[in-house]
C-alpha cells in the first residue's frame, strides 16, 4: 500500500496526532471465506477536532472504530496489520489490562441504538455511576451524585428524579443522551460516535449533534463521528474521511469536499442528496450495489459503479493520491473528477 497520510498540523504528545490509525487491516474469517473489512485505513484526530468518517454499511467504518475501541469480536474478526497510536502508544501492542484502562478513560464510544446498548436490567443512573465506581473507586452514593450531574449536563429534564429509571422508560433521544453522559463521564480525550443519530427523529438528531458539538467545545475532545448521513456531517465536522469497500477513498476538509469532491463515489453521494431547486426531477442514485467483501472487484473497488471507469481501474488498485496538503483521493482520475467533466 502506498497511501499518503495527510499530516495534521498540531499534535498531541510526541509530535503525532492524539489518535492515529495507520494502515489498519482487519479481516473476518467466515465459512464463506475471508472478508477484508478494513484494508489499510489511515486517519487521525486531534484534540478539539472532529473527524467524520463517511461510508455506507459494510464500508468498514464501524469495524475500524470497534478495533480502535478494542471491542471487535475476535474471532471471527482478526487484526492483520497496522497500528492504532493513542498519545503515541500503539494500543494494539498493549497488554489487555492496560488497554482496558484506556477504554472509558482515554477513548470512549457511543453507539447507534442506545436502547440495546444500555443494559435493560439496571437503572440508567447506576450505569453511569458504574464508570466512577469502577474506574475511580468512588462510593455508590458519590457516584450516583456524579451521575445526576452528568444527566443534568446532557440536559435530561428532572435528572434527579429519573436517575433510578430504567432505559426502556426513556424516549430514544433521552436514551442517547444517557449514552453520551456515560461516555463523557471520565472526560475522555477522544469520543467515537458510531452513527449516534441514525435511530432518531430528524428534530432529535439535530439536538443530539448540537449537544455533542457543545460538549466537545467545553472539553476539547477529539471526536470521530461515524455516519452515512452527509447532512449530519456538514455542520460539525472539520475533516472528512470517505470510506468504500474497507478503504479510505477520499480525505478532505468539509469545505473542500462539499464544494468539489475528488472521488467519483463522494461525488455520487453528494449528488444523491435531495435538493429543493431540483424538485420534480429524478433523484440521482449511484448505480449498482455496494461491493461484496467476500468477492471484491479487482482494481478499484468502486469500478463496477463508476462513471469514470477505464481499463486501468479494473487492473490497478488506486493509491491515495495527495492532491494538496491534507487532501487525498484514491482515484486514478481524480483530476477529471475535480474538473467535473466526463459522466
Amino acid at each position, binding site marked *: 500500500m502506498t497511501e499518503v497520510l495527510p499530516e495534521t498540523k498540531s499534535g498531541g504528545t510526541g509530535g503525532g496526532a492524539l489518535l492515529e490509525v495507520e494502515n489498519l487491516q482487519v479481516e473476518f474469517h467466515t465459512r464463506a471465506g475471508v472478508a477484508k473489512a478494513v484494508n489499510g485505513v489511515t486517519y487521525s484526530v486531534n484534540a478539539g477536532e472532529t473527524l467524520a468518517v463517511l461510508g455506507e454499511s459494510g464500508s468498514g467504518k464501524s469495524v475500524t472504530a470497534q478495533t480502535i475501541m478494542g471491542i471487535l469480536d475476535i474471532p471471527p474478526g482478526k487484526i492483520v496489520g497496522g497500528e492504532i497510536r493513542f498519545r503515541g502508544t500503539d494500543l494494539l501492542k498493549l497488554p489487555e489490562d492496560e488497554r*482496558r484502562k484506556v477504554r472509558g478513560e482515554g477513548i470512549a464510544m457511543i453507539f447507534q441504538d442506545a436502547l*440495546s446498548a444500555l443494559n435493560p436490567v439496571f437503572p440508567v443512573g447506576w450505569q453511569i455511576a458504574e464508570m466512577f465506581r*469502577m474506574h475511580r473507586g468512588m462510593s455508590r452514593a458519590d457516584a450516583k451524585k456524579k451521575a445526576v450531574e452528568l444527566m443534568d449536563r446532557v440536559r435530561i429534564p428532572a435528572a434527579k428524579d429519573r436517575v433510578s429509571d430504567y432505559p426502556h422508560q426513556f424516549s430514544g433521544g433521552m436514551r442517547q443522551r444517557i449514552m453520551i453522559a456515560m461516555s463523557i463521564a471520565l472526560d475522555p480525550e477522544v469520543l467515537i460516535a458510531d452513527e449516534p443519530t441514525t435511530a432518531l427523529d430528524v428534530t432529535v438528531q439535530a439536538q443530539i449533534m448540537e449537544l455533542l458539538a457543545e460538549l466537545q467545545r467545553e472539553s476539547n475532545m477529539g471526536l470521530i463521528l461515524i455516519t452515512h448521513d452527509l447532512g449530519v456531517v456538514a455542520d460539525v465536522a472539520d475533516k472528512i474521511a470517505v470510506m468504500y469497500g474497507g478503504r479510505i477513498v477520499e480525505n478532505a476538509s468539509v469545505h473542500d469536499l462539499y464544494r468539489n469532491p475528488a472521488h467519483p463515489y463522494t461525488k455520487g453521494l453528494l449528488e444523491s442528496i435531495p435538493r429543493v431547486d431540483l424538485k420534480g426531477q429524478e433523484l440521482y442514485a449511484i448505480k449498482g450495489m455496494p461491493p461484496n467483501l467476500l468477492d471484491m472487484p479487482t482494481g478499484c473497488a468502486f469500478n463496477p459503479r463508476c462513471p469514470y471507469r477505464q481499463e486501468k481501474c479494473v487492473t490497478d488498485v488506486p493509491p491515495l493520491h495527495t492532491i494538496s496538503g491534507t487532501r487525498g483521493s484514491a482515484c486514478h482520475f481524480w483530476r477529471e473528477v475535480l474538473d467535473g467533466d466526463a459522466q
Partner: protein
Amino acid sequence: MGRYAIRRLLQLIPVLLGTTFLINYMVWQLPGDPFAARCGQRPCPDAYINAMRAEFGLDQPIIVQYWHFLKNLLTGDLGVNFNNVSVASQLADSWPITVRLGLMAVAIEAVIGITAGVLSGLKRGGFIDNVITISSLVLLSLPVFVTGFLLQWLLGVQLEWVKPTVSPEAPFSELIIPAFVLASLNLAFTARLTRTSIIENRRSDYVRTAIAKGMTNRRVVGVHLLRNSLIPALTFIGTEVGSLMSGAIITEGIFNINGIGGLLWRAVNDHDFTIVVPIASLLVLVYLLANLLVDLLYGVLDPRIRYE
C-alpha cells in the same frame, strides 16, 4: 408490586377451592370400595363396611363430604385415617423431610445448573463445554429412577461412600445424593437454558457497551451478562417446583425416605383417601405459590415487566 401480589394471592382462593373439590370428587369416585379389602383373606362383612362408610361420611352426597373436608381443613383438624392414626401427625412427620429434600434439589439445580451453563456458554465449543453438554444430555435422557438406582448402587453399595438408604430422621448429609437425583433432570435443563442465553447475550450490544466502558472481564460477565442470562433459568427452576414434587415420590421410594412421597404411595395403594386428599391439596398449593413467586421474581429480575 405489593398490590399485585395481594391480588394474585386472592386469585388463589377460587383456584384452590376448585382444585380441592376436583381432588375430593375424583378420589372418591375411583372404582373399588376402600373398605372391602381390609379383612385379609376373607371378604369383609357388610356391617363393617357400612359402619366404616358412615364413620368417614361416604354415605353422604359429595357436596356434603366436601363441606366437611373444608370445615376440617379450616379448623386444622384433618381427622384420623382408616387405621385410626392422626392424619395431621403423619403429615407433620413427613412433610418437613420432603420440603428439605425439595429445597436441596432446587439449590443444587440453581447452583450447579447455572454454573455449568455459564462455564459452557462462555467457552462454547471448548473442552468444558463438550463435557457439560454431553453429561447434561446423559442426565436428560435417563429417567430419574435409573439415575437413582445407579447412584445408589455405585456410591452406596459398591464404593460405600454413602449409606444406600436414608435413615428415618433424614439428616442433611444423607439427603445430598437423593436431592441430586431428584434435581438431575431439571439440573441438566437449567444448564442448557443458561448456556443458550449466555451465548445469545454475549454478543449483545449492552455487553459490548460494558467492555467499551472499560469494565473488567469479570465484571462484564459476572454483572452485565449474568444478570440478563439468569432470567430464563430462574423462571424455569421456579415453574418446575411442581414437577420436582412428583419426582420426589419416586426418589423417596428409591432411597427409602420417610417423606410425603412414601406416605402418598402407601395411601394410594390402601385406598386411604383421608391421606391422599390433603397431600394432593398441599401439592397444589405448593405449585401455585411457586408460580406466584416466579411471577414476582420475574418482575424483580427484569424491570421491563414490572407490575404496577
